[in-house]
């Protein structure tokens, strides 16, 4: 792998950020966030790339004193997702091709894909804000405390909302 400029880059107020480390840590989270939000691996890759490129371009606007870098990037990701949904209302999306990573069992991958598609059908009927929360929790896999910082909700509120959403999701899943 190549490296970003000396692994570190300056942002606002001469603060240094370890871009290499952040990339390795954050990209899978951002990708999985989008995979949950849009339900399509190829689109999730495009959107994750867009969010990262935008974060890189706007890095001098990040201010450490206002919050974690992760929260800032997820703020950008949320905007990218919003832009995508507005655009996709006008333009029909291409049919999804199953994502089977190299070296994986095709049968197992197919079952996982089917489960994921089924989950996506249930998520599609949900409010965008609820889907955003579920994508942060189960897509990006981040803690309720970090979700609270990203969304501005209290930590206990995040926990309560997620519990209700998962209960609803489970009930719908059992009906299918």
């Amino acid at each position, binding site marked *: *792998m*190549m*490296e*970003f*400029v000396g692994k570190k*880059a300056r942002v*606002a107020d001469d603060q240094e950020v370890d871009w290499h480390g952040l*990339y390795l840590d954050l*990209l*899978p989270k951002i*990708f*999985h966030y989008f*995979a*949950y939000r849009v339900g399509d*691996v190829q689109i*999730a*890759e495009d959107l994750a*790339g867009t969010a*990262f*490129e*935008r974060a*890189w371009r*706007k890095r001098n*606007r*990040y*201010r450490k004193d*206002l*919050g974690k870098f992760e*929260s*800032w990037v*997820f*703020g*950008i990701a*949320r*905007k990218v997702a919003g832009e995508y949904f*507005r*655009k996709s*209302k*006008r333009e029909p999306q291409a049919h999804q091709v199953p*994502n089977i*990573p190299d070296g*994986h069992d095709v049968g197992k991958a197919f079952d*996982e*894909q089917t*489960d*994921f598609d089924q*989950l996506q059908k249930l998520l599609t009927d949900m409010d965008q804000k609820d889907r955003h929360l579920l994508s942060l929790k*189960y*897509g990006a*896999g981040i803690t309720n405390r970090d979700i609270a*910082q*990203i*969304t*501005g*909700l209290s930590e206990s509120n995040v926990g309560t909302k997620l519990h209700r959403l*998962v209960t609803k*999701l*489970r009930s719908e*899943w*059992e009906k299918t």
Partner: protein
Amino acid sequence: MNDQFLYDIRPEMRKAFADELYTRLSQSAKSTPRLKFAYVLLGTLAILLVAAAAWQFMTTNAHFETEINGITINEMDYKIIDSHYYEPIKENPDALSRPGPTQEPRNVFDIMAELPYRISLPSWIPEGMELYELNQDDPGLWSAFFHLEWFSSEDGPSMSLMVHQIGAPMEEKVDAAPHTWKKVNLGEVEAVLVRGNFRFPFNSLEDYLQYFNNGGTWRPAFWDENYGLRLFWTYQDVYYELVTPSSGCAFAFVQCERLPKLSEGDLIKVAESMIK
């Protein structure tokens, strides 16, 4: 279905995707030396352009993209607007009516308690105006964008205040037609006063629906100097945009120029009362 199932069901990220994106970002970072040459070239061109524009300025009084106290003023004769900008109206036809309060009047201290960061609110507003609404785009800490509305009873003027934190992934940019703005001072804080706005580019509901039903995506909005007054400034790491009449009219078929608005003097006085 349990938590582990919801984690395990996630599609795997392709290593090739991560590598390709990393390479792309690295190349953009490594292009700095080439950029330096490009900067020199651009710098030379910029000097030539500035010289040409200065000459033009002396002869035609032309303006340029300017920055005042963190606010960028982008001058253009007309603005091309993507149709999705208008989708909130399509989804909510009520927005087509004259803007007005939809909630009960609000207490300014309650409003302050709801804000996740500190902002300045006016200590003076014209007589008869009341604070009615606080809307927020998203409760997210970084994207927190607040919109406060003041209305007068009956046919008095209305006013909106939009704020967001500097550093949020939003822009501090004003699109305005040439010769329609000026710099004003709010005490020691510099601000930009814009007279007019790009006009809502639909004359009727029929015109608007026909545009969407025919798959319209772009439509130019032209400047109307009577389309309200707007004041922009930044203060203590917060962006402020104070508008009269209420910003809602910019999305309505009711013409903004017909709605009562504050005078330039009163708008500035409200803003001055926000600078401690």
